[in-house]
């Protein structure tokens, strides 16, 4: 599983890709920042279209592993994250460092471009925004977080949607 609601540990990912023939391991950790442009972030929530996100992560990893002859470990967290928490962790191990760096960079760029994951940020001024939507969707001052969604956007629900199909 590439998506998880458990805290991420880069050491575990490194251990997974490390092997005696691989001398270079490049890693990337994306952590929740306390600011987005000029606004102060207090927390955020990642949601995903889980089955598609899993499939797309698997494709990206396979592409990188074949192109650079390396081993990739990738995890992205979903659910509520606080400032400082790790949102994504990648480890790419190859015989040499050029390949490891290139593969690691490829995985984070393609993940951002292709994997269906969304991020809702909460700011210190009480506002909330779906990142990338270009609009603020709710202000705490104007009542609750906008329109209530019937059916929580949790991983459980999305998994259930998928399970319902026959």
């Amino acid at each position: 599983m590439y998506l998880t609601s458990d805290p991420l540990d880069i050491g575990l990912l490194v251990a997974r890709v490390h092997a005696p023939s691989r001398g270079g391991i490049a890693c990337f950790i994306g952590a929740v920042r306390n600011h987005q442009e000029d606004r102060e972030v207090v927390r955020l929530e990642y949601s995903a279209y889980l089955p598609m996100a899993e499939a797309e992560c698997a494709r990206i990893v396979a592409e990188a592993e074949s192109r650079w002859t390396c081993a990739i470990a990738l995890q992205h967290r979903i659910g509520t994250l606080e400032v400082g928490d790790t949102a994504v962790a990648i480890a790419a191990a190859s015989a040499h460092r050029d390949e490891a760096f290139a593969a690691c960079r490829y995985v984070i760029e393609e993940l951002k471009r292709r994997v269906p994951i969304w991020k809702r940020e909460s700011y210190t001024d009480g506002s909330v925004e779906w990142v990338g939507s270009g609009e603020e969707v709710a202000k705490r001052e104007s009542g609750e977080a906008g329109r209530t969604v019937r059916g929580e956007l949790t991983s459980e629900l999305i998994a259930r949607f998928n399970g319902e199909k026959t």
Partner: protein
Amino acid sequence: MSGIVLSTVTVRILLFGSYAQRLGVAALDLSLESPATIDDALNRLRSLPGGEALPERPLCALNLSQAGAGTPLTSGDELALLPPLAGG
């Protein structure tokens, strides 16, 4: 007996992120007159409360793969509307 029987396709619609929040729903079943394309489904969704805010060409995934607006739909399909991605 003498009327024309219109066949329909029923697809599962999944909404995420800001789209789900605008329409107030994360999943629904949609029945469309056959034959139907992704564009037909999008037009129906635009007629729902909050649906007018959907962009002209939202990113769509049909059965887990990205698909264009002209792609035909079959009963049982899962059509997901994907707001701008923000992983990483």
